């Protein structure tokens, strides 16, 4: 079974990995808001924030180049709109869209690359995201690669038979639907048999220590200083 690269990253043991989820969630949220609302001296600000993120990736001992490539997933969508803006005679807007969306994706990648998803979701519970939704997200993530593999097998089998017609594809999806439904029922019974009470208990929980507090303060201050410099400097 395949795992996402990001999940492997999130199992590291660096300085950033050891921080409590909330100590990373907060700075990333501040970073995103500061970047999204920035207008003045955007090229300089973007360069500064990019350096900040690069330092974060190095600090977390994550492969920087792989992260840069992975964050490029936003570029096809962004590229279309940036191109339209460029052709419409607004190159500044084209740069803004590209820089903001790319750096935001990179920041989110740093967060999920240093925080295992179950812990991240648990910390989202603190900001009043409905727990039922978070439980559904947990299950979705847990079974995503199982169902993806099943779909890949179906696609492979269809390719071996010479491709799928529209009706055959619909049939395949219906079968996949029924199998997923049956799988969910099986999971449900197995979990009830094991005493599932509706909530997850991660094996390791981080408590928010003084060290996490210092880290949060510094990590929030850095982008704030960068943005303030971009606003204030003549």
């Amino acid at each position, binding site marked *: 079974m395949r795992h996402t690269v990001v999940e492997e990253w999130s199992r590291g043991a660096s300085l950033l990995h050891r921080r409590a989820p909330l100590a990373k969630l907060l700075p990333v949220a501040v970073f*995103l808001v500061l970047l*999204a609302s920035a207008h003045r001296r955007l090229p300089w600000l973007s360069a500064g924030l990019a350096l900040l993120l690069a330092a974060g990736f190095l600090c977390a001992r994550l492969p920087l180049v792989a992260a840069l490539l992975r964050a490029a997933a936003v570029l096809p969508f962004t590229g279309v709109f940036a191109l339209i*803006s460029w052709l419409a005679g607004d190159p500044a807007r084209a740069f803004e869209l590209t820089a903001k*969306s790319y750096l935001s994706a990179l920041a*989110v990648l740093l967060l*999920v690359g240093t925080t295992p998803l179950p812990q991240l979701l648990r910390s989202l519970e603190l900001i009043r995201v409905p727990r039922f939704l978070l439980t559904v997200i947990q299950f979705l993530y847990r*079974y995503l690669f199982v169902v*993806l593999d099943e779909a890949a097998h179906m696609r492979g089998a269809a390719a071996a038979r010479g491709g799928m017609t529209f009706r055959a594809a619909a049939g395949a999806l219906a079968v996949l639907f029924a199998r997923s*439904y049956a799988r969910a029922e099986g999971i449900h019974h197995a979990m*009830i048999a094991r005493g599932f009470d509706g909530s997850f208990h991660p094996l390791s929980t981080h408590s928010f220590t003084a060290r996490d507090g210092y880290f949060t303060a510094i990590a929030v201050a850095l982008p704030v200083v960068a943005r303030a410099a971009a606003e204030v400097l003549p």
Partner: protein
Amino acid sequence: MHIPDGFLTTPVWAALDALALPAAGFAARRAQRGFDESKAPLLGVMGAFVFAAQMINFPVGIGTSGHLVGGALLACTLGPAAASVVMTAILVIQSLLFQDGGVLALGANVLNMAVAGVLAGYLPYHLWGRGRGRRAAIFAGGALSVLAGAVLALAELVLSGVRMPGSALGLSLGFFVVSALIEGAITVAVISALENIQPGFVRQPAPGHSILVGALGLTAVLLAAGGVVFASTAPDGIENLAIQAGLSKPLTGYGGGAGVAGVGLIFVLLVLGGRVLRKRSA
């Protein structure tokens, strides 16, 4: 169409996030009422199914293919509230792990696809899903779910000042209509295949809802979507009107912010009105 971060202006994403959180909470409570909490595995695995369904390509015409988006299919099988929860979960996973759609823009994407998309996908089935027009209703649901989501996303982008010349706008609207028709066709095909396997998968719409109310709802959805697009693509007309009415100065400065505030106000009024009505009928 998942909006990344950096596309929406601050008032737009902030207002949409503020709207999306209670909407997601409402859907989660409704879904929990229908399925007890321990049924969370079902919704999670069905979310994984929708994800995986993107790997199955449906050939349409020469060399092109489409894939299932899923809002309408989920609404017809799990019910609209559960479908909304599943779509929200998918959007969260996509934005966090696959860099598909922004985190600040999550509220916008949830409202477009998990709330408006699912509701628009379910409405025709809810109204006409019992009689002879059943297949047509399912088709319309699939098409409307994609169309509503895409048009809202486009409107939010234009509201945020992303440049969209007329030609690009026309082209993307045409593209949306084609993908909407494909989604409708795929939804119908998958639902009839599902019914061949096991009819119990597809839920029957509850009887006793007046056609008039539904038709009004449908018109409201279309009008709202169309109105937002018109208002944001043709600001000149509105500005002219404002100048004639002597309102030019206060309107031009605010633009997007005022529009979002207006939508927010309407939303709050509707919620309050709903509460009052429910208390009266209880």
